């Protein structure tokens, strides 16, 4: 579309489609005007011969130009379409074109016969010729549009240059032809020569125009055949129309002025180009003919691959059994097997049938009864092709029941290395499966394995997430079991911390009050770790809460605890506890029920106390009570006591050495630490510096206590 026109359009504020409608309207209007004027000229006077002819030429050129430009405005094809979609569209349009050409050709033949019969041209024949002219323009315009669509869809970077080149040559060659035709002589050699030369260049450039014809190779036999058929037929109609015209002309000069002179120039040149264009496509199609089968196979393979890839993605959140069923369906479709079934193995053979196609349950049950036979399937590690069932005697259960089955494939199904099942595919002729089937099935088998593993990973991670959130809840609950308030009293600076190895742990500490209201610190370690330990720990918390107000002393508390918990926490489990009651005058009483030693630092000297005592839950009251010793000490100001669980002294470093007690004693004996919080901070940082990694393997709990002057007095 020229830029001037574009300007006008933009000034008129017409959009593209309304421009198209206006053009079409103008064409229709002009066509009618031409026919009307033709008739008028004809009926007024035959003496207006020259004027008539002049009108004829001008109107034709205008009509032709407007038709072609209108068709070009329609020439838009979506390059995003896939090859198989576009081949369907093009085929459809070729079919339509052929239909129009057939009508046009019949019309031409009839018109030729009529004008032959009526030697004397009359108005009706003129009218028919005009109609034929308009129709020919519609058909040729459509064909041009089709070809432009074709070229643009398969365009290459140089397509534009070629198109310009060809257009220029069409104009020059048709102008030449037009001049020759007008002068009606063959004596103008120069014009003939130039026209001929340009025509030859045109033919060559149309023929050699680069376009991506390789897609033709991917068409099936049927589509190729149709393409060739349509193009040959259209070519035939175009050529025979030209022949007709020439024949007409040769024996009837009088009728010349009825005919459109443009037909001899522009249309002929364009028709020629189209013929050459078609010839090229037909040749490409023929050249691709022998590879059709291979390409078709490749296409199926490609399609299968995309199906397989989709399969992996689409089955992500399905159950393993559903994934296997989908895979079996794909296997059957891809190999085009007549019958198929898939058996899934659980731990023990015989197995269950997950999928069956075109096989009766009765037959399947019959086959399954032959255990040696199903074992044979199970033992097939790789995809196995059996070209002839009859040649393999051991396959008689199949030939007995499914009589039409002649060849088969055994496809083992895996998830990772774990064998899940077998898919059996059957066909009704020998050697019916192809080797390509095996490679496709192998790919399917790999994809199935990936799909199953993906699905199980996703299931796992969902479970894990669920578990994680449950654990966080549990962690919160457990935190609430530990004292929240500040443990420090007027005379004692007390601080505690606990760090479970997992989300929840089996360590416990608490501050409770005995019957005489004496405060008592407890530190405990439940055997084992994680959830089981956490449950016992909460059981213990309950018992402590109930028993402590009824206990006279810390030893009494321990004995009552053991009495309550022995036999209820499971034989394998036990709890080690240390209890320490303290009074404002600095008197402390402590017991150790199987727990780590209690460190008491007095006057800068630390002593490990290990009074006799069994772990809680190990034995009944008689033995427990007899073996529990209570220690009483009187602390001086600034003396301190440290209660820990074994997670502290057993923290190990890269060399597998344990943290031990010495570093703890160092901290305790360091004079400048005068608050329990500071002691705990020191312990934490020393452990962090010592340990091999951030994740400790056992729960860690510390309570430190410093006896100090009453700060409130």
């Amino acid at each position, binding site marked *: 579309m020229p830029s001037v026109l574009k300007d006008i359009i933009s000034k008129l504020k017409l959009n593209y489609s309304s421009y198209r409608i206006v053009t079409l309207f103008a064409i229709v209007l002009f066509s009618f005007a031409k026919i009307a004027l033709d008739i008028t000229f004809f009926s007024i006077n035959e003496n207006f011969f020259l004027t008539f002819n002049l009108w004829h030429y001008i109107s034709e050129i205008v009509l032709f130009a407007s038709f072609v430009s209108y068709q070009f405005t329609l020439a838009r094809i979506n390059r995003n379409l896939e090859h198989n979609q576009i081949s369907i569209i093009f085929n459809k349009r070729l079919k339509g074109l052929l239909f129009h050409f057939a009508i046009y050709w019949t019309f031409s033949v009839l018109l030729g016969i009529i004008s032959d019969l009526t030697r004397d041209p009359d108005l009706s024949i003129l009218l028919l010729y005009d109609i034929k002219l308009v129709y020919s323009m519609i058909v040729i315009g459509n064909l041009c549009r089709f070809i432009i669509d074709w070229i643009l869809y398969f365009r290459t970077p140089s397509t534009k240059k070629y198109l310009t080149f060809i257009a220029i040559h069409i104009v020059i060659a048709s102008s030449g032809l037009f001049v020759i035709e007008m002068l009606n002589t063959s004596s103008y050699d120069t014009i003939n020569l130039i026209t001929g030369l340009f025509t030859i260049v045109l033919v060559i450039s149309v023929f050699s125009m680069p376009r991506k014809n390789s897609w033709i190779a991917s068409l099936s036999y049927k589509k190729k055949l149709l393409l060739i058929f349509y193009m040959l037929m259209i070519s035939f109609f175009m050529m025979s129309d030209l022949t007709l015209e020439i024949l007409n002309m040769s024996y009837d000069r009088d009728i010349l002025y009825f005919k459109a002179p443009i037909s001899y120039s522009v249309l002929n040149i364009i028709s020629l180009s189209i013929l050459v264009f078609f010839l090229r496509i037909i040749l490409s199609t023929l050249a691709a003919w022998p590879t059709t089968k291979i390409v078709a196979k490749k296409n199926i393979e490609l399609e299968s691959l995309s199906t397989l890839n989709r399969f992996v993605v689409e089955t992500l959140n399905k159950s393993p059994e559903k994934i296997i069923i989908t895979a079996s369906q794909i296997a059957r479709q891809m190999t085009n097997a007549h019958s198929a079934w898939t058996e899934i193995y659980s731990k023990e053979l015989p197995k269950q049938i997950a999928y069956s196609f075109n096989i009766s349950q009765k037959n399947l049950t019959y086959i399954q009864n032959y255990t040696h036979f199903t074992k044979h399937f199970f033992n097939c590690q790789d995809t196995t092709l059996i070209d002839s069932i009859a040649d393999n005697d051991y396959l008689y259960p199949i030939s007995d029941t499914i009589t039409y089955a002649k060849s088969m494939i055994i496809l083992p199904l895996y998830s990772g290395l774990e064998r899940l099942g077998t898919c059996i595919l059957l066909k009704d002729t020998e050697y019916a499966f192809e080797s390509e089937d095996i490679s496709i099935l192998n790919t399917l088998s790999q994809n199935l394995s990936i799909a199953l593993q993906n699905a199980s990973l996703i299931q796992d991670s969902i479970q894990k997430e669920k578990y994680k959130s449950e654990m966080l809840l549990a962690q919160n609950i457990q935190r609430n079991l530990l004292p929240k308030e500040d443990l420090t009293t007027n005379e004692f600076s007390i601080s505690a911390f606990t760090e479970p190895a997992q989300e929840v742990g089996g360590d416990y500490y608490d501050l409770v009050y005995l019957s005489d209201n004496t405060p008592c610190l407890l530190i405990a*370690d439940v*055997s*084992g*770790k994680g959830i089981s330990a956490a449950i016992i720990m909460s059981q213990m918390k309950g018992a402590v809460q109930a028993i402590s107000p009824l206990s006279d002393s810390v030893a009494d508390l321990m004995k009552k605890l053991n009495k309550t918990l022995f036999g209820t926490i499971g*034989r*394998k*489990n*036990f709890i*080690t506890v240390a209890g320490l009651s303290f009074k404002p005058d600095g008197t402390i009483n402590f017991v150790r029920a*199987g*727990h*780590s*030693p209690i460190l008491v630092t007095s006057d800068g000297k630390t002593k490990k106390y*290990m009074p*006799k*005592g*069994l*772990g809680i839950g*190990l*034995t009944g009251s008689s*033995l427990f009570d007899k*073996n529990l010793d209570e220690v009483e000490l009187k602390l001086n100001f600034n003396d301190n006591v440290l209660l820990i669980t074994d997670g502290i002294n057993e923290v*190990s470093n890269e060399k*597998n050495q344990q943290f031990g007690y010495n570093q703890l004693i160092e901290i305790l004996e360091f004079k400048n630490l005068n608050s329990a919080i500071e002691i705990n901070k020191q312990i934490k940082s020393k452990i962090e510096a010592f340990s*091999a990694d951030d994740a400790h*393997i056992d729960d860690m709990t510390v309570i430190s206590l410093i006896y100090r002057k009453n700060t409130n007095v």
Partner: protein
Amino acid sequence: MPASNKFGITKKQANGIDCFYLEGYLDAHTAPQLESAFQESIDAGNYKILVNFRDLDYISSAGLGVFMAFIEDIRNENGDIKLTSMQDKVFSVFDLLGFPMLFDIEVNEINAIEKFLSKNSNDLSK
């Protein structure tokens, strides 16, 4: 950190006593192995069990739990689990918990076997 995968049990039978020789690390992960070994002996009607700790380097609370789990049943059947030849650090773990008051912990195997045998003859003499 104890390498929990390093654990082994060797079983020998002598004088009607099932002797288990432990090595490596006995913790929550490896305890089930010892548990099933004990269970096997009990299922076979063997209630005299001797556990030699000479090559055991580490024991955790879960490991200790295994002995607690079986001792009652075994003693009810007139049997016993006797523990022998412990390394110091392993013994200290048992000691901390008060196990010496619950179990017969011997310095060496011969003492333990003798005790089993003398108990046998005592039973017979009764």
